């Protein structure tokens, strides 16, 4: 083991200082290992080392049936687990050309927006924590706890729901679902001003995030960033608007775009997205169509020979599922184009020339989930 670590040490001159951030570190949001070359407090070079949580999901999926590999994908971006499952189910339905009932589409969309809301709340809490303000973390979890309880009642599990199946959803929603979601929205709308009071307006927070970690529009496109990272640099790339799927074509919401490209812009984009998610939920929750919640797919699922593709918008960006099928009951090759993998490439241009304290702010604003990078 020692040999391979030495070969990776960045060449350094005498008064430069090499330190490792991670893999175990409270602020890297997972097992990310960065090697930094410092000149005093300034970062001169940055190299990420991955693979600490590589589980070989793509390889494993080649030996699992179509119904089985979906459950592996909840573990990729575990904070948008439902949306990952949704992407896989959509790709299989595209291949089989099955019609999904309206009720299932609306339920899936509602769950996806609740997931997005929960993910952004956790991001907000951990941003405060990384900046040194411990209290916002508890405020964020107050509403997130309500969402997780709703998930537990309907799907059986709080984090990795595995609720989507090809053809619809696994079970119908719990009878209390509509009432609880309405209560959540009401409470969250009343409380969201606290988020602004605790962090957004705080001058210390603003001075630590404004002007820090600038990502230009050209860089964001060249690095294929997506999600709030790209939208804060002025790129319009919301998959829910560009290629609507499930029930997104019948709801109206704004795509939040900012142009400053710094950490504070990414922060504001995500806060606004939370409000837009609440709008979507409100539009759908009263009009869930009646009917079937699943189209039964008979027998073993076998996709016809060919290639299939579907993209969805997870809480962090664009997830693309590429599926190559050879006609058997197992996928021949699956590729998950995950948003965090490309967003990681943005870390280096944003942090070079900055200080270590800024690195923490930049990583908090990028909102990386490492299992999504490593798969």
């Amino acid at each position, binding site marked *: 083991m020692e040999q391979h670590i030495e070969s990776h040490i960045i060449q350094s001159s005498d008064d430069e200082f090499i330190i490792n951030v991670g893999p175990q570190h409270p602020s890297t949001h997972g097992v990310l290992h960065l090697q930094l070359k410092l000149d005093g407090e300034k970062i001169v070079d940055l190299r990420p080392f991955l693979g600490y949580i590589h589980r070989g999901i793509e390889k494993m999926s080649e030996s699992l049936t179509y119904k089985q590999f979906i459950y592996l994908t909840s573990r990729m971006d575990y904070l948008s687990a439902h949306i990952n499952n949704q992407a896989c189910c959509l790709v299989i339905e595209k291949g089989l050309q099955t019609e999904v009932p309206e009720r299932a589409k609306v339920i899936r969309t509602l769950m996806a927006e609740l997931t997005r809301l929960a993910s952004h709340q956790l991001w907000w809490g951990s941003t405060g924590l990384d900046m*040194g303000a411990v*209290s916002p973390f508890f405020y964020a979890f*107050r509403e997130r706890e309500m969402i997780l309880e709703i998930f537990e009642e309907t799907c059986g599990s709080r984090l990795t729901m595995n609720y989507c199946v090809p053809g619809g959803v696994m079970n119908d929603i719990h009878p209390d679902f509509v009432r609880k979601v309405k209560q959540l929205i009401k409470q969250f709308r009343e409380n969201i001003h606290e988020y602004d009071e605790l*962090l957004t307006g705080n001058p*210390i927070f603003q001075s630590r995030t404004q002007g820090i970690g600038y990502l230009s529009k050209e860089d964001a496109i060249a690095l294929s960033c997506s999600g709030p990272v790209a939208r804060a640099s002025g790129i319009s790339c919301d998959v829910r608007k560009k290629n609507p799927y499930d029930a997104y074509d019948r709801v109206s919401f704004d795509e939040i775009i900012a142009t400053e490209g710094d950490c504070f812009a990414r922060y504001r984009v995500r806060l606004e997205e939370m409000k837009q998610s609440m709008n979507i939920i409100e539009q759908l929750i009263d009009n869930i169509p009646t009917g079937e919640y699943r189209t039964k797919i008979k027998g073993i699922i076998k996709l016809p020979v060919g290639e299939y593709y579907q993209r969805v918008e997870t809480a962090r960006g664009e997830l693309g599922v590429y599926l190559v099928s050879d006609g058997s009951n197992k996928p021949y090759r699956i590729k998950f184009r995950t948003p965090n993998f490309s967003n990681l490439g943005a870390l280096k241009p944003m942090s070079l020339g900055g200080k270590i*304290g800024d690195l*923490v702010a930049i990583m908090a604003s990028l909102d990386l989930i490492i299992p999504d990078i490593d798969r």
Partner: protein
Amino acid sequence: MMIHWIGQKLNDIFGPLWAPYVGYILVGLVIITLVVVMAVISIYLERKIAAFMQMRLGPMRVGKWGTLQAFADVFKLMLKESLTPAQADKQLFHIAPYLVLTVSFLAFAPIAFSPTLQLWDMNIGVLYITSISSVGVIGILMAGWSSNNKYSLLGAMRSGAQIVSYELSAGIAILTIVMMSGSLSVSGIIQSQADGWWIFKGHIPAIIAFVIFAIASTAELNRAPFDLAEAEQELTAGFHTEYSGMQFAMFFLAEYTNMFIVSMLGTTLFLGGWMPLHIANWETFNHLMDKIPPFLWFFGKVFISLFMIIWFRWTFPRLRIDQLLKLEWKYLLPIGMVNLVIGAIVTWLGWIF
């Protein structure tokens, strides 16, 4: 009166030659007990206040409402193994925590808890406190250097730079009050507030000095929002990374003791020490206020300042090291110096309430 009685008893038992020395030892024990009790109370307070601000309950199981939590923590720390890192400088490594703690104890000498309870009313009381606190920096640097750890050294350097910078602003704020009251001794400053606390009497220069003192002393304590040197979320884990067990408990205790000292100094200088709150011409009110014993006044004010310091920690995010130093050198220091001049003019012209 009780002091005289104790003095007589000691004289009777030990004879006039040894009595003073036994007296000194007794006093030392009393001070240590007082410090420990106050540290325990402030640890409990901090955890409870933090919990209530975060919508949770805090320690609830150890003792009724978690009151014995601090004892449980100290007990646990005593049972832990005190590790010394491999290439560490052993003498410095072991001395550092004791140095920091001793310095904190020493600063209790001139503080007046009530008109009769003061350990040593030296004529340079305030100067003594500020200079003794400065010696604590040596302990921190010793700890960081002797740990033989890059990160500890970085943390200690940052800590040291921060404390040394903010001592200037704190000193200038203290100087403003000293100038207005005309005395460096603690009892002299408190006596000069007999007709009103300095924060009311001294109007503008005293209020500005109070704000500067509050910011500067929070920074000197290495507490949030200035706790970059010991923050977990940053790279460096601080100068006390390599310490465990009882030695870590010493640093911990020293931090809370320093919190107390800073609160007591602020209370003495700005909030009238043990002087009760009097409002001019409200005789009944003043009479009522006088009934409350002075040491209760003193501790009440100290706990209010303590609450503010704890409140800061759990509300604000952290400042970056360059923002921290910029705040001091570009903002606090110039404002402090201008304030000093204003205070001097105000005193000279007698424009005090």
